[in-house]
């Protein structure tokens, strides 16, 4: 599948739990559904650029600190 080529690792779960936020709280703050937060955290969905920037800004990080391509991690 095409989508599998663009899966990114991310720090969303770590950042969220560090701040004691629930998935529902974070989803409401970002203006997305809880299922979407779950999908991003589990790596099943890579967000659009606008959403990626919103997420990074929310946690006071840059986009490339928050999201890491799987290739770079290997």
């Amino acid at each position, binding site marked *: 599948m095409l989508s599998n080529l663009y899966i990114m690792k991310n720090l969303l779960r770590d950042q969220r739990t560090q701040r004691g936020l*629930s*998935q*529902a709280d974070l989803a409401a703050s970002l*203006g*997305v*559904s*809880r*299922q*979407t937060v*779950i*999908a991003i955290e589990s790596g099943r*969905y890579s*967000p*659009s650029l606008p*959403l990626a920037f919103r997420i990074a800004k929310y946690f006071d990080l840059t986009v490339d600190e928050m999201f890491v391509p799987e290739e770079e991690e290997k």
Partner: protein
Amino acid sequence: MRSNKSSRWLAPATVIIGGSIIALAVGIGHEWSKALITEIVTLVLGVGYFILTGRNSDIGAIYGGRADERQHLVYLRASATALRVVLGAAFVCAVISVALNDNYWQSDVIGSVGGVAFLLCLAAYGDNDDSAHD
């Protein structure tokens, strides 16, 4: 795409209006008793859609007009797959029509296959809230 509560009525209202038009056509072209049955089925479907739009799932969000970007993607993927299924069904109908030298271009069959394929794809590509946990 966050939207107001009125969007929840859009899908059920569309189903009821569309079904009522079909029921009217059944009444004019066939029997009014059959039209009544069609209308009852339509109303049941409309209620079903209304319940669906209130659910906290991808399908509920899509039909309820409050889909976010990932849910839009789910909708687009399901639409694309359903279109391929409809084209396949239309191709099969065309082949049968030619082979039997008969009119086998059944819009109800093609439409039903496409509709079922779309709903199955939404369920397959989307998530339910049951799978969610903090």
